[in-house]
């Protein structure tokens, strides 16, 4: 984990690629979370709702983006984490996570980071912000 002096404003996180997101990844997340909305694994159901196929769970991408941040700054140190969903993620998509430190509070010893998971060949799937305490 980085030290306080290593996380100055502008510090970029090493990019990391995840995927391709498989149907197994989606089902594994649904089992882990308890969210069994069939639109994420049942093509017929998804098509009856007007989608070309089943698609990933937004919270899977959110969880991957959170893991990207907590793997760097520490699971115990997260104090805020927020995401906004942009583009849907489809089976076969690869996601590149990136981020940077955008704020620092010396008194509280916290840093604010901005995060994004981008679909390879597409746009931002999810944007996030987080605040971490740095020990």
């Amino acid at each position, binding site marked *: 984990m980085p030290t306080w002096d290593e996380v100055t404003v502008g510090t970029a996180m090493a990019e990391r690629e995840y995927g391709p997101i498989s149907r197994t*990844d989606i089902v594994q997340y649904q089992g882990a979370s308890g969210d069994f909305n069939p639109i994420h694994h049942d093509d017929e159901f998804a098509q009856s709702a007007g989608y070309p196929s089943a698609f990933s769970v937004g919270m899977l991408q959110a969880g991957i983006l959170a*893991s990207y941040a907590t793997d760097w700054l520490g699971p115990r140190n997260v104090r805020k984490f927020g995401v906004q*969903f942009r583009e849907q993620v489809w089976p076969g998509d690869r996601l590149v996570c990136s981020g940077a430190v955008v704020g620092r509070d010396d008194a509280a010893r916290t840093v604010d980071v901005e995060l994004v998971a981008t679909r390879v060949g597409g746009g931002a799937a999810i944007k996030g912000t987080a605040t971490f305490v740095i020990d």
Partner: protein
Amino acid sequence: MVDRSAIGATDEPFTMVVEYGKVREFARATKSESPEYLEDDAPVMPPTFLTTVSFWSPKGQSVFSKVKLDLRRLLHGGQEYTFHGPPPAAGTRLTVQTRVDDIYEKVGKRGGTMTFVITVSEFRDESGTLVAEARSTAIETGQPATTNEGGA
């Protein structure tokens, strides 16, 4: 069209123990490589784990049942978590209560009306201390949306 009279509605609080196995399963499903999640005896929960608690609420008690949303047109717009200390660890007995914080409509980029439903869940530990909050934005679209404006 949802029922704006649901603003302020709350569900019944319910209690759930944060389970070690579910934390590890969740960390693995979300591609974490942190040994703190995967090897500790009492790992803290990943931040987005809080959302899973809502899927274990007693049947028919979800506040969403009071808003009457159509699953086929439901998108998840965003989600925010706040922790008032390290995230709760496995073994913690959490009591959660969710309220409908706001409901409003907006005209989407392609015309149709979208309805936004904001819910806030408060998580308290055994001593009644507020340890975490989750704020969720659900969007009911006028018709199925295949890209942007959400991601469910």
